[in-house]
């Protein structure tokens, strides 16, 4: 839901007596999410049915680049002795459209993002405006475009699909 809130969509009306997620903002966000997996190849296949424990494992194994989470994991990950020394990641705010509030729900406050050393560039990229080219920019930043890290992060879960986002 944090992504939907970041697009300006709401799940319910004010008194939670009706669902509203099929608003233009909601549809735009859903299209963006679907495109991330199917059009841009940025999300690992199986997004819709992926459970939290699987997502966490994939992130720790460096097979996906982001993990929606809370700041608690900043400490938790650092205390994981089995993680590779090369495992580098950051915590950042969820993506949102310009002029819309950043979405946070429950204990999901932001994103743990792997393989990105330029935090300033990441912060800029997360404030995308339109899905298409900003998605590419977002993907470039998250995956470290131009570096050798990108194909190593997601390739096992993309079935050999091209990782090029350029």
């Amino acid at each position, binding site marked *: 839901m944090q992504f939907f809130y970041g697009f300006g969509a709401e799940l319910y*009306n004010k*008194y*939670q*007596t*009706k*669902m*509203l*997620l*099929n608003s233009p903002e*909601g*549809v735009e966000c*859903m*299209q963006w*999410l*679907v495109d991330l*997996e*199917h059009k841009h190849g940025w999300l690992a296949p199986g*997004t*819709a*049915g992926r459970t939290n424990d699987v997502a966490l494992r994939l992130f720790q194994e460096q097979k996906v680049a982001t993990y929606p989470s809370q700041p608690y994991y900043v400490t938790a990950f650092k205390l994981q002795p089995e993680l590779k020394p090369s495992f580098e990641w950051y915590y950042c705010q969820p993506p949102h459209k310009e002029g819309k509030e950043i979405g946070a729900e429950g204990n999901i406050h932001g994103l743990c993002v792997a393989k990105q050393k330029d935090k300033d560039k990441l912060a800029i990229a997360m404030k995308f405006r339109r899905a298409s080219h900003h998605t590419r920019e977002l993907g470039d930043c998250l995956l470290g475009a131009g570096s050798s890290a990108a194909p190593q992060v997601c390739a096992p879960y993309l079935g050999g699909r091209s990782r090029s986002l350029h």
Partner: protein
Amino acid sequence: MPPRKSVLPILEEDPDRYIESILAQHLKPFSRLYSELVPKAITPAWDEAFALEKTPKEALDWMVETGNKILKETAEQYGWPVD
């Protein structure tokens, strides 16, 4: 959740019934709502959209239509406001 009656007077008058009221007014409806909304409306819509079986709009329209039926049934059962 919709606004509901305060259970605090019940706590003062009948502490034993307080727990029953909490369960009846909050926990059971909440549990029923989400135990039905997620598997019957939200998850199928997500699955169909990501499987490209429906467009995002088609999936969300169906989710909202189905979800609102569940919301209405739950509201009527527990006396919550209905639009």
